[in-house]
């Protein structure tokens, strides 16, 4: 029991002392959990970490190659380590434990007493006993230091392989091999590729990821991995690694089957070994395959010694995943505070983190349960393999494997051990074939595997802990706070529960309006209001005791601005409207991180004349702008200062360009492929249609940005199905798809109508977009809007195509008004001295550039200098390469000449 319970603070005894050995992910979670719950301050914690840094996100280790900054891998709130009751000793391994004296001795010989001891020493990467495994160039993949060393090695090998020839510089590719074809091996192979090396995965077993997935899945996975440019050798044992004759570095691998492979770098990813050396030396029991043996409370045979994470041997085995480790951390924290928690069993669901390769498995993926039945869906053409393992009742879900498309994983994994409603095979069919049945999750279904939160806990957060929104539920349960994969489910559960509890789900826009965006849109339209002042006076919420609703905020003002613009209220900078716009709409350009703007002229359908390109290039050159081609088939120019925007646009407008509305929540671009005019497969003029659509909807303000695409045949080169509206040509007309998007949660657009004529297509898209503009929430893109629209896509189809609500003519008229009312926003600004006046840098020095802007050259252009570069006055020479040297940070007008 917690002895300090009920003791008034003034007489509180000194806190007891818990020592944690190991500063890894699970240690971090333990300290977090203890500090979060130990309100009375009954415990002080000392963590001894062997690594020279704070605990970091080992699961995200591979990200280090992208971010190259150990800070980016920080876990949780760094303030944890400033807590006066928390002490962290980095670079300070514990050398021994004296259980009788209840002390540990650190590597510097200092002795520390403990009341309770928690072992969280994790694992080390296994080094298979292969001849030559100690050669320079052989790496493991476990710590930041490991990956930093690996990166350095590959980069130096790449440098060494570069030779100058008469024809220019030739690079001999760095040849890499990864021993081990499991989760870690594949991730390491992906990392080698990312570093520019070749990668071959050497797998001892019959197929990749053989622990998690079956042979069929392994074959599908191999194809996906090969598609990433990674070679795979299965059924291959490595006999020896031989040094290079000249350098003595790794040079060649010899396989048991007589095969060989020349290599410059080898990564060992054959598994992990628990770091149980301290436990052994202290005479604690270790498992058959290592690990400090603990019971379900995570306690060893010594009542004062606990083990958590990968080092703990629980239920007879060590678990190499972070989720069960976190659970153990929570159990021990709870126990120290007098709780009764026990380890509920491990969730061993896994998902491969290799971009573009979707693999996931959970439960009994191999179908080892007696009499289990397997339902398999394989589509070798799409590279998809999925399997569900069901109990012999053909209803209870025992496990699953997903390769190529792990879409169903998120919703099925929590159903482990539960009965699936309806025919299980419906869950495996490709999206859209038949709507998968909706799932009512049982209370014990594990929704968030990172933090081990069940559906019941999430429901309880609403019903018992009075959480009223997703943010509250996240804070209360921790669900969704780690990898975020479970957030859609958490949101859905929270909303359902709130609705059930009769809690009014507040759609209030902000403190100034009780209405949702959709309600406000209707209100403004019906009441025929045209200014923010009128709208807030009429519909604003007046707080108790106040005389008016105030003057709005950064949420409702842009929303009202967008509504007014959608309803056709003239120029967005006219009169009071100017005060509602966020800076992008106000400056008609996109603010970037240093406060300058980027400029994007419209290029309808991605079409641009050579003359146009020359003008854009000349403008960028004259104003020293960084240029980049966007994903929407046009050109973005960065680094324009406020006071330069009018001059830049004067030149662009004179050359016939107009605003690209890249800054607005409005139509961005209509991407197109070249279509029937040039392409030998095209069946319709996709560019012509894209131009027509872009000119029709340009400037249309909407709840969020809108992207369209048009492909000239079913080969879909324009990737139109990744757009809010995608149009694909057929030999009889056009198919239109809606509700797709890329970004954080990519989604394919779904078919709305087939084989439309051009006129029918325009009318369909008109109505779809107008309906969306009128009824979507603030910042809700079309994909979630379609999903949440009452009745879903089918209901939208009825409104748009069959005019089931009788509002078709109204929607058509609204769009017609938009099309007629369109004017180029930039041209209108240039023609109006009053609007132009706001483009000064300073009221008292309108043409003086912001003196704080600083740039450095990079790859022949400029980029904003980092804080460090500004502070030191020089740029990091590594970053800037050999462009100019010595490189000084330049002020706002850096000119770069290649």
């Amino acid at each position, binding site marked *: 029991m917690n002895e300090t319970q009920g003791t008034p603070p003034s007489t509180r005894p000194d806190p007891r002392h818990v020592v944690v050995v190991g500063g890894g992910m699970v240690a971090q979670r333990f300290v977090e959990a203890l500090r979060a719950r130990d309100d009375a301050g009954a415990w002080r914690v000392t963590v001894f970490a062997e690594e020279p840094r704070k605990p970091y996100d080992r699961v995200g280790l591979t990200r280090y190659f992208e971010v190259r900054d150990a800070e980016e891998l920080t876990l949780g709130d760094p303030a944890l380590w400033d807590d006066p009751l928390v002490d962290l000793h980095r670079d300070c391994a514990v050398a021994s434990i004296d259980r009788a004296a209840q002390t540990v001795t650190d590597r510097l010989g200092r002795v520390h007493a403990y009341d309770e001891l928690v072992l969280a020493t994790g694992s080390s990467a296994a080094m298979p006993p292969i001849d030559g495994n100690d050669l320079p160039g052989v790496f493991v993949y476990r710590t930041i230091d490991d990956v930093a060393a690996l990166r350095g090695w590959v980069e130096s090998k790449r440098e060494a392989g570069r030779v100058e020839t008469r024809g220019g510089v030739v690079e001999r590719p760095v040849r890499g091999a990864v021993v081990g074809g499991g989760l870690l091996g594949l991730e390491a192979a992906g990392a080698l590729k990312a570093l520019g090396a070749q990668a071959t995965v050497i797998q001892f077993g019959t197929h990749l990821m053989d622990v998690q997935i079956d042979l069929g899945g392994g074959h599908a996975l191999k194809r996906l991995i090969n598609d990433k440019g990674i070679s795979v050798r299965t059924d291959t044992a490595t006999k020896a690694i031989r040094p290079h004759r000249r350098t003595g570095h790794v040079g060649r691998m010899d396989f048991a089957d007589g095969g060989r492979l020349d290599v410059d770098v080898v990564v060992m990813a054959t598994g992990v070994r628990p770091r149980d050396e301290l436990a052994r030396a202290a005479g604690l029991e270790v498992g058959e395959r290592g690990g400090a043996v603990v019971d379900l409370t995570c306690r060893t045979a010594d009542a004062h010694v606990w083990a958590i994470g990968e080092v703990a041997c629980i239920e007879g085995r060590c678990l190499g995943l972070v989720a069960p480790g976190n659970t153990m951390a929570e159990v021990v924290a709870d126990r120290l505070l007098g709780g009764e928690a026990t380890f509920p069993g491990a969730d061993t669901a896994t998902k491969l983190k290799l971009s573009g390769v979707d693999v996931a498995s959970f439960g009994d993926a191999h179908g080892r349960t007696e009499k289990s039945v397997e339902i398999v869906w394989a589509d070798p053409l799409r590279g998809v393999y999925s399997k569900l393992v069901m109990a012999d009742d053909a209803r209870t879900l025992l496990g699953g494997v997903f390769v190529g498309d792990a879409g169903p994983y998120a919703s099925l994994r929590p159903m482990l051990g539960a009965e699936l409603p309806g025919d299980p095979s419906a869950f495996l069919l490709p999206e859209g074939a038949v709507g998968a049945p909706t799932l009512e999750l049982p209370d014990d279904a594990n929704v968030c595997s990172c933090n081990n939160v069940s559906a019941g806990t999430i429901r309880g957060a609403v019903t018992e802990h009075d959480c009223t929104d997703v943010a509250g539920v996240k804070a209360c349960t921790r669900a969704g706070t780690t990898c975020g994969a479970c957030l859609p489910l958490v949101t859905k559960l929270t909303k359902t529960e709130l609705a059930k509890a009769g809690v009014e789900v507040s759609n209030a826009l902000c403190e100034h309006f009780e209405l949702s965006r959709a309600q406000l849109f209707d209100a403004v339209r019906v009441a025929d209001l045209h200014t923010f002042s009128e709208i807030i006076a009429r519909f604003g919420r007046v707080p108790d005791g106040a005389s008016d609703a105030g003057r709005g905020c950064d949420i409702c003002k842009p929303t009202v601005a967008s509504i007014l613009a959608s309803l056709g209220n003239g120029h967005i900078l006219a009169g009071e409207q*100017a005060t509602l716009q966020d*800076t992008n709409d106000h400056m008609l350009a996109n603010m970037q991180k240093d406060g300058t703007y980027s400029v994007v002229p419209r290029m309808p359908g991605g079409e641009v004349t050579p003359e146009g390109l020359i003008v854009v290039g000349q403008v960028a050159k004259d104003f020293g702008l960084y240029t980049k081609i966007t994903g929407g088939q046009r050109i973005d120019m960065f680094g324009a200062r406020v006071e330069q925007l009018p001059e830049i646009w004067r030149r662009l407008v004179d050359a016939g360009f107009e605003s690209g509305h890249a800054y607005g929540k409005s139509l961005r671009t209509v991407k197109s492929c070249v279509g029937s005019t040039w392409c030998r497969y095209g069946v319709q003029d996709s560019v012509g249609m894209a131009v027509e659509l872009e000119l029709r909807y340009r400037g249309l303000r909407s709840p969020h940005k809108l992207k369209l695409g048009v492909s000239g045949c079913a080969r879909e080169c324009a990737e139109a199905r990744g757009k809010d509206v995608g149009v694909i040509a057929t030999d009889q007309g056009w198919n239109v798809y809606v509700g797709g998007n890329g970004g954080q949660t990519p989604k394919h657009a779904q078919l709305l109508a087939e084989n439309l004529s051009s006129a029918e297509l325009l009318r369909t898209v008109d109505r779809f977009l107008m309906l969306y503009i009128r009824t979507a929430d603030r910042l809700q893109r079309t994909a979630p809007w379609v999903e949440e629209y009452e009745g879903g896509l089918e209901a939208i189809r009825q409104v748009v195509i069959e005019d089931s609500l009788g509002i078709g003519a109204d929607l058509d008229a609204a769009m017609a008004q938009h099309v007629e009312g369109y004017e180029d926003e930039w041209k209108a600004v240039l023609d109006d001295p009053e609007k132009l006046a706001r483009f*000064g840098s*300073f009221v*008292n020095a309108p043409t003086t550039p912001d003196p704080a802007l600083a740039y450095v050259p990079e790859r022949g252009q400029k980029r904003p200098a980092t804080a460090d570069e500004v502070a030191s006055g020089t740029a990091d020479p590594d970053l800037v390469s050999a462009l100019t040297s010595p490189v000084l940070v330049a002020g706002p007008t850096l000119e770069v000449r290649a």
Partner: protein
Amino acid sequence: MTALTPSPTATTLVDGPGWTAVCPLGALAPERGAAALVTGSDGEELQVALFRLLDGTVCAVQQLDPYSGANVMSRGIVGTRGGTPTVASPVYKQVFELHTGRCLDAAGKEPRAGLAGDLASYPVVVSGGVVHVGIG
């Protein structure tokens, strides 16, 4: 420090040292900000964000956004929180009280290393139709 409204003694006040005339009141659009360059007493150039409210008062805070490190506060949206005039950073949307510069909502972010989370605010006097800031 809050913004001062014009008062009879304002003229004498702003003629002294420590005040800088910045621009005519008419150069500031109501409920939008504008940046100004002012020389501080130490000779350093300071960037200030000026905001004219609907009632004619003018507030001045630092132009540097502590959460992004960019000089952009004048380009934020002006509004109110619980009746108090505010400006929201145009970069990461932190909300600051205009009269005091106090940060009301950090939007879950920390300020950049070495920068305070609140904005500095400066006294303002409008005298003879000219906006004066209490710096210099």
